[in-house]
């Protein structure tokens, strides 16, 4: 089974949100809020239990490559479709006490809802804030990487529906190399702040959702240096052991003195 990945490219995204809708339609996800946010055209706000693709709308006083936006003053409107990263070292999976979250043959991270007990440990363990509990249900939900579609040899619904091929889907090697090529090309075309958002080199490791970003990751609510909480386990245990030992010694000392 080939190992697949998304490559999401905001320089091709027209902000139509078809990926959000296709995801909800295919996966039967409910509507999750009829509130106007005022965050540009983004009324979705963030990924969550019932939103597995989220298009962010970023209005910035910066130029988009060589684009002329009405005059001298720089301005750009960037659209980025966010999704679960399906990390190599997945915080959610490592935190899951019931074994509900598993790694699939596509190397994606999958929640088995019949095993999930709704403890919520995964929610706080995701470095990207992707997975969430559905309030009315209690269990945790997130992108399945369209496991069912991939199993049938189909492209995930979001990538399939994207009219401008802003969401690409293919083997992880191909996506990684295309991301690099695209950034090189974009830079040559004047997008001087284009870069690949790739978690390799961090504790998260290789991710199955690559992004091309313009400017700082923080502007897209992406952590500049993501960390899997479990990397802190050793130091946490050490600290706890030391604290317990010190406490024990103090108690002993109290008896001795």
């Amino acid at each position: 089974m080939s190992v697949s990945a998304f490559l999401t490219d905001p320089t091709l995204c027209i902000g139509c949100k078809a990926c959000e809708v296709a995801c909800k339609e295919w996966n039967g996800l409910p509507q999750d809020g009829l509130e106007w946010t005022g965050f540009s055209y983004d009324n979705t706000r963030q990924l969550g239990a019932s939103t597995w693709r989220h298009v962010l709308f970023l209005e910035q006083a910066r130029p988009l490559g060589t684009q002329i936006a009405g005059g001298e003053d720089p301005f750009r409107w960037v659209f980025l479709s966010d999704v679960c990263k399906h990390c190599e070292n997945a915080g959610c999976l490592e935190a899951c006490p019931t074994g509900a979250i598993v790694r699939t043959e596509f190397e994606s991270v999958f929640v088995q809802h019949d095993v999930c007990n709704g403890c919520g440990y995964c929610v706080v363990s995701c470095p990207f804030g992707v997975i969430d509990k559905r309030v009315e249900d209690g269990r945790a939900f997130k992108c399945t990487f369209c496991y069912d579609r991939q199993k049938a040899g189909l492209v995930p619904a979001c990538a399939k529906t994207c009219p401008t091929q802003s969401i690409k889907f293919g083997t992880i090697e191909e996506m990684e190399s295309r991301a690099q090529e695209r950034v090189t090309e974009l830079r040559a075309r004047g997008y001087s702040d284009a870069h690949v958002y790739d978690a390799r080199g961090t504790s998260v490791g290789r991710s199955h959702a690559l992004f091309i970003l313009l400017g700082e990751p923080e502007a897209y609510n992406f952590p500049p240096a993501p960390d899997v909480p479990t990397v802190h386990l050793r130091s946490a245990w050490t600290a706890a052991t030391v604290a317990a030992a010190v406490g024990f010694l103090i108690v002993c000392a109290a008896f001795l003195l």
Partner: protein
Amino acid sequence: MPGLGTSFGRGGSTTAPSELLNSDAILIMGSNMAENHPVGFQWVVEARERGTKVIHVDPRFSRTSAMTDLWLPLRAGSDLLFLGGLIRYVLENGREFREYLVHYTNAAVIVADEFRDTEELDGVFSGWNPETKSYDPTSWLYRGISEKNGPPDLAHYESDSTLEHPRCVFQLLKKHFARYTPEVVEAGCGIPREMFLKVAEIFTSASGAERTGAVVYSVGWTQHSSGVQVIRAAAILQMLLGNMGRPGGGILALRGHASIQGSTDIPTLYDILPGYLPMPALGPVSRTLADYIARNRQSTGWWANFDKYIVSLLRAYYGEAATPENDWGFGWLPRISGDHSHQGYWLDMNEGRMEGLFVLGQNPAVGAPNARLERRALSKLKWLVVRDLVEIETTAFWYDSPEVRRGELKPEEIGTEVFFFPAAGHAEKDGCFTNTQRLLQWHEKAVDPPGDARSETWFIYHLGRRLKEKARNDPRPRNAGLAALTWDYSVEGIHSEPRVEEILAEINGFRSNNRQPIASYTELTADGSTACGCWIYSGVFPAPGDNHARERKVHDAYGHGWGYAWPSDRRILYNRASARPDGQPWSERKKLVWWDEEAKRWTGVDVPDFAAGKAPDYRPAADAAGDAALAGDKPFILHPDGLGWLWVPTGLKDGPLPTHYEPLESPIRNQLYSTQQTNPAAEAKAGPENAYADSPDPRFPYVLTTYRLTEHHTAGGMSRTLPHLAELQPEMFCEISPALAAECDVRHGEWVTVVTPRGLVEARAMVTSRVRPLRIHGKLVHQIGMPYHWGFRGLVKGGAANDLVAISEEPNVRIMETKGMLCNLVRGRSGEGPAALKRLRSLMERRP
């Protein structure tokens, strides 16, 4: 439609979205293509990746602007100034494509000596009658040609191929647009001179033998009081640059939703019959079929076949009942006796002059101009039939509307009997769409409609069947046409749904004696031996079981094999112009259709839009008629002279050339003419319930424009009820610049009320740099943008922007002006109940 129709011959987009891949530059104006045509916009994105320059000129920075090389904000309603500026730039700098122009357009033709330009008459062309408020267009004809009983004989004109004659179209054009300087553009549009020149340079240098540019527009051009003339200006620009009929060139008229092109081809309009045959008018001009044909049949060019098309249409309508003795049933066709356009009949309804109304696939209670007036008008009907997917505002106006809540209408006092029928969605029925690029695409039923929901075809068929039964038992003369109407479709399934393919077969046409399908409109006759529901569609169903609209196997770069583009599966219209006068391609890079000297035929990668065997050097005899009267280098075969019309000698109601008028409401006076502020032929339909601001007006200082968002569909009847769409844009908002927010003391996200003399709408303030104030004649002009998707029903509710729009009529197509109006903006909500009515009145009538 007449903008393209009078310029080129056919009222359809001349190219396809996918063809933009071959453009060297794309000018998108009056269109928010990325948001409203996201699937078609993939070609723009891809073209740009390949190096095509994409320019967007629009009042707002939209999702389209975000994807272009250059976005320029302009004042809503100043489009014609901008395009006139481009035309002048071409003419003044010698950037026109000379050879193309001389051979393929009427640039060289000499115009009647009686003609006087708006530049001489301060804003009106010769022929203006201030009493009837209309033009007598005879002085717009070519020199030496008169309009007697029938259409003028435009094939025999005087011309000067040097383009030097002072009365030739080229020179008149030059004079007419001489004042559209970059300075005038800057002052009127708010586009800095150097930015304008940059765009002019990019677009004009992407044209010529080796290169082509395309123009993309949508209703951002159409919905103005001079909308047709704005499109005309684009047509002139594209002809001057030699961009018509060529790969990557043309004018892409994007239609607002599925089958809008189809709804003018086989019209839901009151003034044309299928295939762009005019609807007969009351009176002597169409008393008999002979009168009507004499009036409309051209002696030269393709419309010499007019009689064949109308007789075949009548044979399709009335079958055996249509005979030569009864004028093929021509007398049974309705006659135009007044303004029966949407605007006209709603005003009639509001005056109590209409008894009943069928509303199918429309939601005028929030989706049509001056929706407040239209809701009140509905309350004056005796009966109303609405067919839709859900109980939309138009069905519920009598108990759930702002008027009821404000106490303006009382349910117990409304006599309108409302019949609501559930309709089937497009996936629940068979049918055919005609999309933007004139492409007929069949769709098949995927599931049965739920409950009592039925297709439109079912409704119309069974209604017609029952009415015909009534007519049969009631022999009054008025029923004769209904009784004679053929209505013999067979039905299928438990709900007796008509077989839709039989309707398409009737549209395609057949031989009257044996019902064998015809293969092309060239087989149609005027002797009653053929019947055809819409001649331009003929060929879509050339043999039983061979429905070309159903085809899904593309076999070339132009998409042949997928669906069927009218006419004759031609994908690029007027493609004879892609070759030089001698029949060879202008360049290797831009070849499309060319003359094969050995085979003595036109050939190429598209179906030639030209008589296949007519050689480039063919010259007609003096008395030749029909298509044979057009020479082998005349690509615009629907026109009687075979030329592209820079100058429209006949067919428009507001002038042979486009000229800039201000919108019916404008923040400035017209800088071009001292006495003529607005399009003289446009009708404001002003009245107490359809009032206007002055131009300018201190009570309504801001420019207002309305539009759509990707997330919703038109007035929202199909999207506000769907949770997955409703949540994406849940609330009515208005887009304002930070400067205007400061001026009105409004913060981002706060509630504001936008007011026009027609009504008010509350909205959330979206303060964004995507909207910018513009400097117009030294004065800062603020613009406000409002989407029009909301209404008082559905999962997400909100004010209907159409409450703010006036009912008005552009003279040629009678469309309203939604894209440039005046308004005011005040902080706070409009409120509910009788207090809201008071506030509404005080704000609408507020004096400075």
